[in-house]
């Protein structure tokens, strides 16, 4: 793009100013038009000055860099913290979901709020200098960091200690149409939505079902963007179960062993074609499906941003478990170059909680190596941070990290068996109890910490599964709003007809007293319920109590407005017209396929009521006569009968 006549501007990094002139650039930029302006503008370069000396430079103001700065600053080190954004926080500032992890390390707090907490600490430190909108352009000879300060002044820094916390960048995928406007990285979507309140589209396909893809789907829904599907090439979801459950209950399908084949559209994205993959990740012919979307979001992993490490001459190792090339580092986060430390995603793609711990470790060790702080206290801090990291990583979701780090250190790692037996079902006569949908060991423990009665137990291993002790629970429901994974539901059995369930809710709210359709864990219609109470907590997770039929109460995970204008077609399975239309529009063209996809005409009546309706919808939608559609398969029995029918009569 051309901005104010200057070609090749990356507009996504350009600040908007009044009167700014942004033009789509055609072909290569023409400098000859700028010749007159240039003479004056570029006549003021100063001659080289000697580099500025400083104790420590921290590159990158995300969770790792901020934490490193805090720890080094607390020990009295003169620190310059450099970030190329206009505010600190790194990726935290676009994370609107609550973080997992240990209660001591910001678990249950939203990323954006963690950034604020860290920032407050940094700003309170007198020896820390913050350079924003400043790029570290190179790690040069003689250990000089070249910095383009405020995008204006090119300065040289010669720090004694260097902590690189440059994070990671998103991976791209190769498919035709991948440069069409409307194809975004997940991070870009989050920046637009969560930082600038701009919707990147109206209807999305997400590629990749790791945590980033799942979280993004959830945030899309919060922003009012429809999510048609999440496609995932692997045969299982890579992200956490709780993240998956959050989007499943909002009706987002995850298509496994499926990937994007191409983006459709001329000027911008108008659709996407996805395809199923075989065991060798080769496309299965004939399995193409088309989605009508204007947004394709790629969430296919991250690669450490290791340029400065390469330039510094750090030893580098290619470790797929850690995200690609990572700088070799010891357990103090120091690289092969003395005094050069790494932390966070740069040292291996992981998560904010460990980035914070790694940053703290690098910060303490770096300052300590410059002779700052009390020896005993420093040693204690270092030991305790290492211990915390180890505790955090002892679960199965961190196994690849341990494997990767062992590979890097050329250490052998003993194969570990992760045994987390599901908690036994405790019989209780209590009428008020919680449902814990947390079957996957992940490092997270806020539920245990918030329960005032100690009725949820996790124990020392933060990865262990939570365990509910009904007799200790008084049914206060504080855990419902505190669980970062939105995986706790409070049931109150009233009588055999009516019961209540209290669920966490971060989507659109409806007023108390509203009659709503209640939905199950897959976003499917369960029945009708009523919102009886809404409580909204300071952390912005609402807790909604619904009154529903006692038979379905335990299955309720969400709700939506009653769709009065959307008639039920299949009465047995309660399939609505919109669901059938959606399936037809995504490629189903005969009744047998529809049966398979939307589960219509497969109920007790065997289609006697709805088959003709469905055929009519098909013919209308596909603009053809009913007899042109593929024929109906009518399988026995023609009337349903019970297996034990004969036997019962005899007796």
């Amino acid at each position, binding site marked *: 793009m051309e901005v104010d006549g*200057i*070609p*090749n501007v990356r507009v996504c990094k350009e600040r908007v100013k009044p009167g700014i002139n942004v033009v789509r650039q055609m*072909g*290569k*930029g*023409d*400098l*000859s038009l*700028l*010749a007159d302006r*240039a*003479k004056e*503008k*570029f*006549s003021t*370069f100063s*001659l*080289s*000055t000697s*580099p500025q000396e400083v104790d420590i430079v921290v590159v990158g103001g995300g969770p790792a860099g901020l934490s490193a700065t805090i720890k080094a600053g607390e020990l009295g080190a003169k620190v310059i913290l450099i970030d190329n954004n206009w505010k600190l926080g790194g990726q935290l500032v676009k994370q609107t979901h609550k973080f997992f992890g240990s209660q001591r390390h910001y678990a249950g707090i939203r990323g954006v709020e963690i950034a604020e907490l860290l920032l407050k600490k940094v700003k309170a430190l007198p020896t820390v200098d913050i350079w924003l909108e400043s790029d570290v*352009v*190179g790690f*040069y*000879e*003689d250990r*000089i960091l*070249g910095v383009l300060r405020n995008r204006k002044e*090119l300065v*040289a820094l010669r720090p004694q200690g260097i902590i690189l916390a440059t994070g990671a960048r998103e991976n791209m995928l190769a498919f035709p149409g991948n440069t069409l406007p409307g194809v975004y990285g997940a991070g870009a979507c989050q920046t637009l939505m969560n930082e600038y309140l701009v919707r990147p589209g109206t209807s999305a396909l997400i590629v990749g079902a790791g945590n980033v893809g799942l979280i993004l789907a959830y945030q899309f829904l919060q922003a009012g963007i429809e999510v048609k599907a999440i496609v995932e090439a692997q045969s299982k979801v890579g992200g956490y179960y709780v993240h998956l459950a959050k989007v499943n209950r909002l009706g987002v399908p995850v298509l496994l062993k499926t990937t994007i084949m191409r983006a459709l559209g001329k000027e911008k994205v108008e659709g996407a074609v996805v395809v199923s993959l075989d065991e060798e990740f080769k496309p299965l012919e004939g399995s193409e499906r088309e989605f009508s979307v204007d947004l394709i979001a790629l969430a296919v992993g991250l690669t450490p941003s290791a340029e400065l490490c390469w330039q510094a*001459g750090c030893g580098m190792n290619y470790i797929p478990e850690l995200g690609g090339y990572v700088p070799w580092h010891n357990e103090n986060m120091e690289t092969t170059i003395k005094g050069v430390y790494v932390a966070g995603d740069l040292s291996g793609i992981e998560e904010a909680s460990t980035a914070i711990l790694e940053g703290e470790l690098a910060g303490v060790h770096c300052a300590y190596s410059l002779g700052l702080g009390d020896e005993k206290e420093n040693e204690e801090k270092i030991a305790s941070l290492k211990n915390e990291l180890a505790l955090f990583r002892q679960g199965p979701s961190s196994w690849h990290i341990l494997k990767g780090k062992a590979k890097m250190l050329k250490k052998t790692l003993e194969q570990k068996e992760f045994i987390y037996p599901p908690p036994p079902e405790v019989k209780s006569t209590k009428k008020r109890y919680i449902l814990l949908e947390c079957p996957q060991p992940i490092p997270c423990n806020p539920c245990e910490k918030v329960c005032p009665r100690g009725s949820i137990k996790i124990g020392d291993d933060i990865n262990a599964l939570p365990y509910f002790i009904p007799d200790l629970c008084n049914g206060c429901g504080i855990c419902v709003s505190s669980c970062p994974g939105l995986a706790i539901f409070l049931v109150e059995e009233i009588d055999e007809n009516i019961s209540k369930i209290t669920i966490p809710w971060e989507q659109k709210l409806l007023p108390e007293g509203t009659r709503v359709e209640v939905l199950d864990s897959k976003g499917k219609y369960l029945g009708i319920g009523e919102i009886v109470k809404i409580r909204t907590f300071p952390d912005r997770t609402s807790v909604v109590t619904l009154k529903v039929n006692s038979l379905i109460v335990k299955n309720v995970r969400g709700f939506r407005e009653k769709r009065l204008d959307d008639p039920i077609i299949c009465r047995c399975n309660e399939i609505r017209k919109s669901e059938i239309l959606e399936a037809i529009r995504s490629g189903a063209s005969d009744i047998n396929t529809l049966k398979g996809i939307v589960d219509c005409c497969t109920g007790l009546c065997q289609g006697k009521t709805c088959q003709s309706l469905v055929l009519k919808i098909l013919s209308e939608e596909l603009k053809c006569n009913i007899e042109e559609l593929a024929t109906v398969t009518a399988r026995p029995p023609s009337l349903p009968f019970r297996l034990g029918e004969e036997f019962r009569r005899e007796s």
Partner: protein
Amino acid sequence: MQKIDVAVIGGGVGSAIAYYLALKGIDVVLLEKEAFLGRTTRACAGAVRAQFSDPTSIMVGKESIKILADFQKKEDIKFTQGGYLLLAHSSELAKSFKENIKLQRSFGLEVEEVTSLDINKMIPGLPASEYLLATFCPFDGQANPFLVLDFYRRNILNYGGKIWFKSEVTRLFRDGGHFIIEINQKQRIKAEVVVNAAGPWAREIAKMVGIEVPSYPERHEIIVTERVAPLFEPMIVEFSDENGCYLQQKLDGSFVICASLPTVPNKINFIPSFKFIQEIRRRATRLVPVLGYLTIVRHWAGHYIMTPDGKPIVGATPLPGFYLAVGLCGHGFMFSPMLGKLMAELITTGRTSLDISSWIFKRDYSIPEILK
């Protein structure tokens, strides 16, 4: 032990030598210590010229350009003749330019003196009035070093030559009538003839057979910018210590911008310096202000292999069968086409079709070349 007629050490200039030897049907192996050809050549600016003050350089430069033009007829090596514009800031330099023009014209080069008006027609914004004299030779130009190296690589193999990558010469000695070359401290081969074209490492190679070559590496740095529409064709060269800089727009639209900053000590050093970035910004925008709008996309360091008199060391040595093509003083890429041809002639016939005796190893190194 494998026996080979000619072993060429170093895949920069050595690629051209091996190419011409292979063309003659000689059993040649090119030993390259990296996984790719020409570590030093790859780092060069990719410009070619014949505007020199040394007659041999003029001739070799001119013939090399002709050869590159021939290559370009066979395949696209991004060769074009956009000329070289040399700027003289001092009366001393202006005086030698005037003498050079005479000399260069005597070799058939159409070198012109250009006025400041003409300069500004050619280059927008250049502070032409600060220069006492400028010369322009439209014969000079550019080619892409990567494509030229790849041209050599494919043709060496096509003509039956061999290239051994990741093959560092760790020992070299004479044994009876031939040389024994040890590669990677393991394998050994026998060769009748050895050509030392090892660039910054040539001095060490020569030492292995007891020959002291007075060449030394001098680090030079380059930046390359993003691509823009064609702005001007010539390579511009400013020679002064304070503002010295040379830059050229490539056919892909990017600008390659270099400067010779003093580096001490003279040793192999591939690490770019921050000082260079600070300096090059000032120097480049002083010459062509509008370049200030361009984004730097890469910055690297390579080496000029210098000699005390600024002239290459090429040809036979007192040790029979041991040849040198070293110390090319930053002109390895631009001289290599003709040097390859001449070296192949020398090795196979003992004579060269063009007189390069002034570059012989045994010479008086105290008379310096001016247009380095």
